């Protein structure tokens, strides 16, 4: 009996790995075809990607990018785990980063007070922005997909309005960039200088902590169990005593708070100000990464690293004379393949387990029957 359990577990692991591998292989094939179609050699492109991507300065770049992407992935995954599609991560993190930057620029406190304050401000802003969608869903039944998409646009408008000279921002000396007041040096987050390879952002530590917290809260606490129960079956969760409405609101707020962290690595480790070229659209990247990582804390990390790797290496391909659209093609194909592959593998796994359990029980029954006869 023990053997079968182990076998099922091993199988489950294999099936779990099968889906992303399948997706990535399919994406490689499609990309190769696309490069071939443009009249170039895909083999050269891939080998260039690997050599360039494994250079030490690329590694640091990828880790820094992945830090941001990881937070985005976790933020989206929290919603996914209970069947909430928080598309609004994008608006949430931009609002959060903006107000945190305004606060950070205004503060003249020592770093050990200012940095936590900035981070808290970002999380609170993200949570509040997400809470609007949560409250609308709970009280009026508005689909979170619709409301968060609209909140994204509203966030863009609000930031555009406030990010003007004379409002909450100022014109930079260059004259083309408008930004919030830069953070004082004391409010910079620590970073690790790796010499010629570049500077590794210290915020990666926070990202790891968030990952651990995500795993712990979902897998080891009562709250996490309730949240997962709602995600798997709302009706069963209600019958088990979970208040689904409260859960929807709470998880939306938590997702928003984590979304608030997404802009922090950039703000505290890199740009130190919110300007009109602050990275946008990372919320959508987060959706892709959460899908790729199967909402699993380690999976999301791998997805984030892959995304960073693709971005870094395809940028370089452009200098080698390849088309820069390759990146979009690879990413798009991966996401599509991942979604299809997971569903296929999930159904296959479920069916297979049912068959195996049936077969095992039949074998047991047959064995006892033989004993009876003998």
């Amino acid at each position: 009996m023990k053997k079968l359990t182990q076998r099922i577990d091993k199988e489950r692991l294999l099936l779990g790995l099968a889906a992303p591998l399948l997706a990535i292989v399919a994406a490689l094939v499609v990309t190769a075809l696309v490069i071939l179609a443009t009249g170039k050699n895909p083999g050269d492109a891939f080998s260039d990607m690997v050599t360039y991507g494994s250079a030490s300065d690329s590694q640091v770049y990828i880790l820094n990018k992945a830090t941001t992407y990881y937070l985005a992935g976790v933020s989206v995954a929290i919603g996914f785990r209970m069947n909430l599609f928080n598309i609004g991560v994008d608006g949430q993190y931009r609002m959060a980063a903006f107000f945190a930057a305004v606060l950070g620029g205004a503060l003249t406190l020592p770093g050990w007070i200012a940095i936590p304050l900035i981070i808290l401000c970002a999380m609170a802003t993200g949570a509040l922005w997400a809470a609007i969608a949560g409250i609308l869903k709970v009280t009026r039944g508005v689909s979170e997909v619709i409301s968060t998409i609209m909140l994204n646009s509203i966030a863009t408008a609000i930031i555009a309005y406030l990010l003007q000279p004379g409002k909450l921002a100022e014109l930079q000396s260059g004259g083309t960039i408008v930004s919030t007041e830069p953070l004082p040096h004391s409010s910079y987050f620590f970073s690790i200088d790796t010499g010629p390879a570049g500077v590794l952002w210290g915020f990666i530590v926070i990202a790891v902590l968030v990952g651990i917290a995500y795993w712990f809260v979902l897998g080891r606490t009562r709250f996490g169990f309730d949240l997962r129960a709602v995600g798997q079956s709302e009706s069963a969760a209600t019958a088990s005593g979970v208040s689904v409405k409260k859960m929807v609101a709470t998880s939306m707020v938590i997702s928003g708070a984590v979304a608030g962290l997404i802009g922090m690595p950039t703000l505290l480790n890199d740009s130190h100000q919110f300007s009109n070229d602050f990275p946008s659209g990372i919320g959508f990247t987060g959706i892709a990464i959460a899908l790729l990582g199967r909402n699993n804390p380690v999976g999301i990390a791998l997805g984030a690293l892959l995304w960073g790797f693709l971005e870094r290496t395809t940028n370089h391909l452009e200098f080698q004379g390849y088309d820069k659209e390759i990146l979009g093609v690879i990413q798009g194909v991966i996401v599509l393949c991942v979604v299809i592959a997971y569903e296929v593998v999930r159904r296959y796994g479920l069916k297979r387990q049912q068959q195996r359990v049936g077969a095992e029980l039949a074998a047991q029954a047959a064995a006892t029957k033989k004993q009876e006869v003998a």
Partner: protein
Amino acid sequence: MKILYGMQQPDEGTITVNGDQVTFGNPADAIARGIGMVHQHFMLADNLTVLENVVLGAEKLHGIGAKARTKIREISDAYGLNVRPDVLLEELGVADRQRVEILKVLYRGAKTLILDEPTAVLVPQEVDALFANLRELKAEGLTVIFISHKLGEVLSVADEITVIRRGTTVGTVEPKGTTPKQLAELMVGSELPTPETQESTVTDVPLLKLDGLHLTQTDLDGVERIILDAISFTIHKGEVLGIAGVEGNGQSELVEAIMGMRHPDTGVVTLDGVDISHIPTRSRREAGVGYIPEDRHRHGLLLEAPLWENRILGHVTEKPNSRGQLLDIKAARTDTERIVEAYDVRTPGIDVTAASLSGGNQQKLIVGREMSHAPKLLIAAHPTRGVDVGAQAAIWDHIREARREGLAVLLISADLDELIGLSDTLRVMYRGRLVADADPATITPEELGSAMTGAATGHLEHTEDDAR
């Protein structure tokens, strides 16, 4: 049956239809070969007419207009089904819906009919009508495969009976010259379990008191419908209160109101002297309410989660599942092993998903889970539906045992034998009201059945000439 209807592929063995060996890749293949299935759970759309439901997916046969209507009338008359094609499905009762399902299958040209537990939702009078229909079909040369747990029905309607136990054929008998007892022994391999409770354990300590429960619901057309009307009863410690009724007369809503999943407009629910009318579901569960839901897939299990997580479901705040805010996974797993052992849940391990267990084993897991928290009140809605005879007996035993120790049980069931056998008190529910009560010691299923259709109200007295 799933294999015969093409929903699942066999590992080995063959199917022969009319002398041809066939393989079915999907239900469409089976239909093409003239095999049609009437599922236990109806697959009909409420907001379409009978005609529309019948032609749905078979538009190519006779179109969707007058020709189809004529054809439906033709079939209906030929087999005495008495189906009116232009009625909205939501206006039909369960028995009528079932006839629509049968007609749907015939319309597609089925020559072999599979009926899966067709009588589970019918009252005895409706069962007789169904049997008359089936005999009609038989007379017209059709083949009917009738799957049932109820021995009396099988004996009365079948020409040949095949007994299947744990996936293998254990015997084929002629109904003539076979007694229910012999058949039952074939089914379980031993004595037939009866749901008879031996000695009364009813005390005079009231445990659950419902007072004037009233629930209305506004449906999509804006019409206010009364779901529950002036429901009052008391269950004492050690008492099983059975509620009979055709499904859809407010039983599910009553259960959900007691569980706190629905909020009645007026009325008071008192558990063990404490007013629980306004506390959330979780607090009610913590206060000692065990719940065996009528639809275990929707309300009782997380199908894609492993068994040990399902053991936690509904009792996440209680020992051994958690300590403070944290889950105690080790203790929960150990306890799951215990339940699997004690309640004879047949599974290769506690890490398989709930979906991979058979219905009976899922149900045993739920019963084990609910009983493990020493409930004061057990709400059991159709606790043995779709469960094999062996598991049924085990579940009855567990309920009886707990009742001896002072458990109060609210039993809702469509199986009248189960209701009569297990209950200390019987009530009949009809259109959201408790219309009749009866003494389970003397009442017969037929008498109960007439009250379930609203034909009799008040206190049901058993009359000698009505006995079967």
